[in-house]
């Protein structure tokens, strides 16, 4: 997989240049290249007009590149002044700490960006935006000419956003070039001078913000054909398997979700990273139980407060993080496949190795798992085959509702289309499938209906025949 192929990007001093693209378009990789964390295997980088070779994080830092991440990387137990000093102070030969100078510099930098933060405050006590301001102060103190901000407003309130915008505008006025990454289109028109759109690892266009509108940006972001062939829908949706009424969970950041899944249909759940899709799945599977609203399974109201209850109700969840949650890597695939059906396949808690072997062999054959046998440990399998093992574990429970979370993430193309075929067959066999995916073509190709989440709730229900533009517009919160 190439994360980036052919990106052209330029940044002037004194401008805010927005970087836009859907999940997996290559924004993060581009940043890693600019900050020296990853080495490009083709093309050139110039900083300040000088070509740069073998950019390392230290070299990037020297050249004035600073990055402010979504989650500030400060030491929570140290004070603001100490955190700034750790970034900026060279190691003095005597190892003495000059406390007054340290404080003074911190105070000066904080004042410069208009932040009302005491240098003596512990970082632990600061709010998220305050921590971001400390990061910006560090960048300024290091004499950064290029400041990269990765979704800085993702966790900020409206008011905090305005404060941050003011600081960004100050940076621009002082001649710093800012690369601003965001999913929020409205921020681009408020803040940015130019915008570059990435798609599938390529830059597909750069233009002045004044020449663009939201619609044309969305078009640039998604403008690709559904290149893969997806298996056709063959089933008529049957009875209602799942219905949610105003479902919410404060801890998961999910609120007022209304949704229906019928037997025999695949409902795609789309949305940007952080929209609350996985959180919704975790509620339905009892990991973070709901604290508001109602869940109906086959018309019956139920409460689900643990994964065991979810399994008992016929809900299966193939989680997103295959290596941590989907498969126990150190254990044989047969043990993995029977893990969710212990009470049924092992009555009285006694292991029945023969029955387990048989079940594993059946699934290995039916799903085409490539492994040397039922005893192969999970970590000896490729990503796609691990995913099939994870799927087998849940199919073994004979579920009524199958929730798939990014079922083909990190899976090679061949295994991907096999998994798609399996999903289609399952729907045909009468399962209700709720499929979370950040892969837009997958959502469009597989779904009978598409639910779009944004800000913890479902903001749009679209038909499976919708196009990429509609889904992306709903995910970005653009109202027609």
């Amino acid at each position, binding site marked *: 997989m190439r994360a980036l192929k052919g990106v052209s990007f330029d940044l002037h001093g004194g401008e805010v240049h927005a970087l836009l693209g859907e999940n997996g378009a290559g924004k993060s990789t581009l940043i890693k290249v600019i900050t020296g964390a990853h080495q490009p295997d083709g093309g050139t980088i110039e900083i300040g007009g000088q070509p740069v070779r073998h950019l390392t994080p230290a070299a990037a830092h020297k050249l004035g590149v600073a990055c402010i991440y979504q989650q500030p990387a400060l030491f929570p137990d140290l004070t603001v002044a100490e955190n700034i000093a750790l970034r900026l102070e060279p190691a003095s030969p005597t190892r003495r700490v000059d406390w007054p100078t340290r404080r003074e510099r911190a105070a000066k930098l904080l004042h410069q960006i208009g932040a009302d933060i005491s240098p003596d405050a512990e970082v632990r006590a600061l709010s998220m935006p305050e921590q971001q301001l400390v990061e910006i102060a560090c960048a300024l103190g290091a004499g950064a000419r290029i400041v990269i901000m990765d979704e800085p407003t993702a966790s900020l309130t409206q008011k905090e956003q305005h404060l941050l915008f003011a600081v960004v505008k100050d940076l621009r006025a002082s001649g710093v070039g800012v690369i601003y990454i965001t999913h929020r289109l409205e921020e681009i028109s408020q803040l940015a001078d130019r915008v570059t759109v990435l798609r599938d690892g390529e830059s597909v266009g750069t233009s002045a913000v004044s020449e663009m509108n939201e619609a044309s940006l969305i078009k640039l972001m998604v403008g690709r054909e559904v290149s893969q062939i997806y298996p056709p829908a063959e089933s008529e949706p049957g009875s209602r398997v799942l219905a949610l009424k105003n479902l919410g969970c404060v801890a998961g950041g999910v609120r007022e979700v209304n949704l229906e899944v019928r037997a025999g249909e695949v409902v795609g759940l789309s949305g940007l990273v952080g929209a609350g899709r996985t959180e919704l799945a975790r509620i339905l*599977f009892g*990991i973070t139980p709901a604290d508001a609203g109602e869940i109906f399974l086959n018309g019956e109201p139920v409460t689900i407060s*643990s*994964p*065991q209850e*979810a*399994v008992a109700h016929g809900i299966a*969840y193939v*989680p997103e993080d295959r290596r*941590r*949650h*989907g*498969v*126990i*890597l*150190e*254990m*044989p695939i*047969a*043990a*993995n496949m029977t*893990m*969710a059906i*212990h*009470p049924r396949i*092992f009555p009285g*808690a*006694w*292991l029945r*190795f023969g029955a*387990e*072997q048989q079940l594993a062999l059946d699934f290995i054959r039916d799903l085409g798992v490539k492994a040397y046998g*039922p*005893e192969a*440990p999970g970590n000896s399998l490729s990503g796609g085959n691990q995913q099939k093992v994870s799927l087998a*574990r849940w199919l073994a*429970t004979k579920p009524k509702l199958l929730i798939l979370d990014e079922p083909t993430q990190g899976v090679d193309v061949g295994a991907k289309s096999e998994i798609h075929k399996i999903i289609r067959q399952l729907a045909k066999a009468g399962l209700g499938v709720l499929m979370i995916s950040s892969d837009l073509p997958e959502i469009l190709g597989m779904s009978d209906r598409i639910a779009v989440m944004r800000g913890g709730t479902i903001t749009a229900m679209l038909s499976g025949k919708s196009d990429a533009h509609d889904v992306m517009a709903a995910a970005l919160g653009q109202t027609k």
Partner: protein
Amino acid sequence: MNTDKRGFKSILLRHETILVLLLIAEVLYFNAAGRRFGTLDNGFNIVRHSVEIGLLALVMTPIILTGGIDLSVGSMLGLCAVLFGKLWRDAGLPPWLAGICTLVIGAACGGVNAALITRLRLPPLIVTLGTMSLFRGLAEAITQGTDAFTNFPPSFLFLGTGRVAGLPTQAWILLFVIVAVWLLVHRTTFGRSFRAIGFAPEGARYAGIPVERRIAFAYVLAGVIAAAAALTYTARFGTAKADAGFGYELFAITAVVLGGTSIFGGVGSVHGTLLGVAAIAVLSNGLSRVPAIMNTASELSGMLTGALLLLALAGGLLPKLFAARAKQSASSAAAK
């Protein structure tokens, strides 16, 4: 389809083979150098003396398999011994009834650990470090540090000194617990769950395994068996004092880890634990029978046990180290 059968077969087999060889070497050496080592009586002696540590090590195995640890088992033994004495002497219960009550008390002590670990989600190391002090302190408070319960009736002392069908009475208890824990760990879904939890606690949760219930079970079981060990201990010495089983938790953990169970959870076996117990028990008994070193036997046995443990741990890492080296040199050769 035992989880330890294939994936870890080579490692475990190796480990257990080494332990068996070590045990044979110990027996051969002490038989040659020791006085009256190789007698049936001494064999029984070794068994009698290792029953309590054996019991504790057996129930420690599932706990360590889940990635946990129980430092409080030695203190639970002490508290249960004292409460047994109290129930028998002061409450006037017959020994068998007092014994049953003691097992219930042991379950309750384990339940305290389980509740703190699963409900409050505190780390087992810290929880059981706390209850280790708490239970021992309670035992001392009950006896005011000096009181000791003695003069138990012969019918009870039989448990610690008598023989049934030619074997020491408590050997039968040990045998029963060995079989039960072996079946639990290697033949039931409980054992599966322990391993799954040890490898990936979140992964086990996402697989619908009742993680909290399984962990709680392991700690409560440890409490019950620690109480049983308190009974055999009291019957063997004829006395129940607050310092009963002092430091036994460390012997038990040593035996488990020596037996090849990973302190990080997931990997391990009950038979490995048994070999670990045997290696330690034979070593300490044998040293006390070699005339030249008799007087320093207990110091020596502590030192040698420690050395063994470190060697076993290092030995377990060696194959990995060699593999990494080979890989490294191969890749650097390829680079050239």
